[in-house]
């Protein structure tokens, strides 16, 4: 008998909290499901980034996955560097000089690059962005946000309270 009580409790719980599992699964789907991406054929890109206190110009670069990127880093005023998050890539250029190096953008996503040579007071905040392919993380984040708002609306619904009364 005891078991049965426990059992029906469990079933009740699942009945009452099913939406929680649905949300959890939806959330996981949003985070992990691979989204179809139009794959453009990789090309060679020659990019020029000017570094000055405290800005990279252009600050945002968009490329496709697999592109071969040849980067010219030009230091406009003092010594600057460029170190790319997620990639093992770093460049340093002396004032007025250009330094060039190449890498293949094989990881997708948005990667920050930072100045790697102390160049002044705001040096720690000198940042640029490299976007390889679409920013799926941002899209997934937006979907999660919508899910969260939906979940908030749902969570306050008193599940099955009427049903119980009917059953009793």
């Amino acid at each position, binding site marked *: 008998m005891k078991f049965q009580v426990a059992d029906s409790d469990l079933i009740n719980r699942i009945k009452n909290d099913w939406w929680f599992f649905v949300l959890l699964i939806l959330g996981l789907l949003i985070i992990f499901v691979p989204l179809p991406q139009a794959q453009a054929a990789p090309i060679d890109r020659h990019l020029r980034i000017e570094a000055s206190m405290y*800005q990279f110009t252009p600050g945002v670069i968009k490329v496709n996955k697999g592109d071969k990127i040849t980067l010219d880093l030009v230091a406009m005023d003092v010594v600057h560097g460029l170190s790319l998050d997620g990639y093992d890539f770093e460049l340093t250029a002396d004032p007025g000089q250009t330094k060039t190096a190449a890498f293949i953008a094989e990881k997708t996503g948005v990667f920050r690059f930072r100045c790697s040579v102390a160049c002044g*007071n705001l040096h*720690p905040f000198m940042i640029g962005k490299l976007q390889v392919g679409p920013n799926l993380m941002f899209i997934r984040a937006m979907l999660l946000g919508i899910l969260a708002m939906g979940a908030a609306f749902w969570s306050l619904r008193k599940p099955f309270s009427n049903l119980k009364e009917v059953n009793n």
Partner: protein
Amino acid sequence: MNRIDLTRFPTINLLLRSRWPQFLIRAITLAGFVFTILAGLFGPVVGSHNFAIIFVWIAWWSALKLFFIPFGGRSWCSICPIPMPGEWMQQRGVFSPTGKGFGLGKRWPKKLRGNWLQAGGFLLIGLFGAVTLTSAKVTAIILFSIIALAFILSLIFERRSFCNYLCPIGGFTGLYAQASPVEVRVKEKQICAEHSEKTCYTACPWGQYPLALKSSADCGLCMECLRVCPSDNIMVNLRPWGSDLGQKAKHNLGDVFLGLVMLASVLVDSAVFLGTWGQLKSAAYEVGSLPWLIFAGVFLIISLGVLPGLYSAAIWGAVRVGSAKTTFRKTLSKYGQVLVPLGLMSWIAFTVSFAFVKFSYVLPVISDPFGWGWNLIGMSGTASIGQSTSWSGWIQILLLVIGLFWSSKVTQQISESKKQALPIVAFSGLFTVSMLWLLIG
């Protein structure tokens, strides 16, 4: 309901009741405070090598948002060194009160009550943020002015008037302490009602009456009431997060203003320090120049115009679908609590984005705090550029999404209908999208 009274555990009870642990920790934080001022004045000029900058803006400011507030509410205030010297004068004793103290003990003027000055102070810090964050001298001067101001005010006004009405950090922690899982409350209301001396109220440095505490915003968790209550009627509870939010919470316009200023500040800080706009950074830095004036103007427009405007528009929408009784002003205040989880989680996400990358700066400055070539813990000169990983990106996303869920849920709880909640949830959604865009866009 679902509270755990920590004073029931003998060891914790002893630690909270005795003045020693708190006194020792505060002695250390006071020493650290003085040391930080000295390091700021005499240490290296390069911000990222200066103990004061790294300690205040990376270590302490992050610890406050990642640890003290989310797990302990105003717990920082219980070990804060800033009001210490003033309190020694007020209670004429370093360790515990001894009779009548020095000071005029005036009451804080009515007109200056509420959160307005704290919010203003926070705005000021934001306006000069790029300088304070990079100049050790400025940081040191600000720290010194704060402790000096707290000292002077405690000679003129009663109790912790500085903490209650002026300290910008206090405004920040008080606001978000309402979402925190710690509270001081009375056990039996009846016992308090029958106790005419109200020893706890007389002893409370924050001017609170524990029986009347509805939210943890203004209680500094100093434990004085616990120590003096003759009937042992005070408890220190662990509680579910967000317990002060909901139907019964009372919010006033000052709270709403504070909440909106915090939202604006986290947006602007994210744009300045984590964005790719170099001109914005320089503008924020060159205090007094024309670009800075423009930056300051835009900052003020966002925090005093755009965000309050959008919030008011959402409230207007909610009032329209509400019942006839709801007035605009009341609704404006009522929904203020929605800004608490929204802002708290955004600040935490910002901190994850900001501080994790810069954490490698912390150990080197402990190793060589004055830049004199010391190597105390063998970590000098190990600072690296740092990088953010997709892990930290996902943590930020989850934090922001939790904040959105939480604030939408609070909105629901205090709304008459789903329809009424909609405009305010939309406001939270819009804010979250802006944060997402700034942090991981």
